[in-house]
C-alpha cells in the first residue's frame, strides 16, 4: 500500500489490509487530526482498505 502524508509531502510503502482506524493506529496518528482519502474519495474509520490502495492522509491541524 502507498500512503501519502500530505503535511510532510512524504510517501510510505507498507503491507496492510484492514480498517482505516487500524492503519492510523499503526501509524500512530490520532483520527481526530486527519482526513483519509482513497482516489480522492473520503473514507470513514470503519472502511476496509487493502494493499492495492493508494491512500492520502491530510492533516487538519493548523494554527499557532
Amino acid at each position: 500500500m502507498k500512503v501519502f502524508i500530505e503535511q510532510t509531502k512524504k510517501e510510505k510503502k507498507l503491507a496492510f489490509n484492514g480498517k482505516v482506524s487500524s492503519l492510523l493506529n499503526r501509524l500512530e496518528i490520532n483520527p481526530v487530526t486527519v482526513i483519509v482519502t482513497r482516489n480522492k474519495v473520503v473514507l470513514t474509520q470503519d472502511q476496509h482498505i487493502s494493499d492495492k490502495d493508494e491512500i492520502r492522509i491530510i492533516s487538519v491541524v493548523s494554527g499557532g
Partner: protein
Amino acid sequence: MLCSKCSSLAVIDGPVLCKGHFMKYVEDNIKHTLAAYGLAKKGEKIAVAVSGGKDSLVLLSLLKKLHGNVEAIAIDEGISGYREKTLIKAKNFCRKNHIMLRIYKFKDLFGFSLDSRVTEKDKPCSICGTLRRYALNKYAHSFDKVATGHNMDDEAQAILMNILRFNWSAIPQGGPSPGIVRDEAFVPRIKPLYFLAEKEVALYAVLTGLDVSFAECPNAKLSYRAYVRDMLNEYEFKNPGAKKKLIGFYLSLQPKLNSSSSSLPLKHCLSCNMPCKGDYCGACMLMAVN
C-alpha cells in the same frame, strides 16, 4: 458506515453523514451562528481575514454565498517558505471568485518582517498574534466587521490556555462575537465558524474541491497553543464531544464573566491612540523593544 439521514455512504464518523447531508449541516451551522449572534446584518460590509488556509477560505466562500458583501484582507507577516505559498492560494481563490483581496505586509507597517524580529528567546506566535490583530484592525477600519476563521478547536484551545495560565482578563473576551469593550477605533470581530470543528471545516474544503493550503506554520510547533491543542485532541479521541462541551460550558458562564468585567477602564495608547488596557498597546510595546 451509512449516513444517519439516508442510505448513502458516510464521509464523516461523527456526525455520521453523507457528502450531501454534511454540506447542508455545515451551511446550516454557519447560518444559525450568523443569525443567533447577529454577526452579519443585512447591508454590513465585512472584511474576511484570509491566509490561504482551509479555515479562512471556507469562511470566505461561505460568507460570499450567504451574506454577499465581503472583501478579503491578508496580512503577510514575512514567514519565509510558508506565507508566500499560502497567499498564492488566497490570490487564486479571490481571482476565481471575483473577490477584492488586499495584502498588507508587516514590513511596510512595522518596518520588519516576523522572521527578522524573532530571536531564539522569543515566542513567535505571541508576537505575530499581537501584530496581526493590530494590523487587521488598522486596515479594516472602513468595514463594519472583520470575520476570522477561528473554529471550535481554536476556541476550545484558547479557553483552556487562559484557564491554565490564569489569564483572567482574557477569559470573558471569547465567543462568536468577541470583545467586551466597544470603542469606535475597534472594528468588531466575528467568528462564524465558532461551532464547527477543525476537521469539519477541513472536510468541507476537501469535499468542495477548494484549493487551500493544509500546511502548518513553521512557528506553530513552538507554541504553548500547540501543546494544548495536542492534549485536547488526545482527550477528544478518547472522549468524543469534549471540545463541544468545553465551548458550551464557557458560553453558559460568559454572561456572568462579562458582567464582572464590564467596569474595566479603557485607555488609549499614548503612542498610536489605539484602545488598550495599559498606557501603551501591545503592538507599540513590541515595536519599542525592536
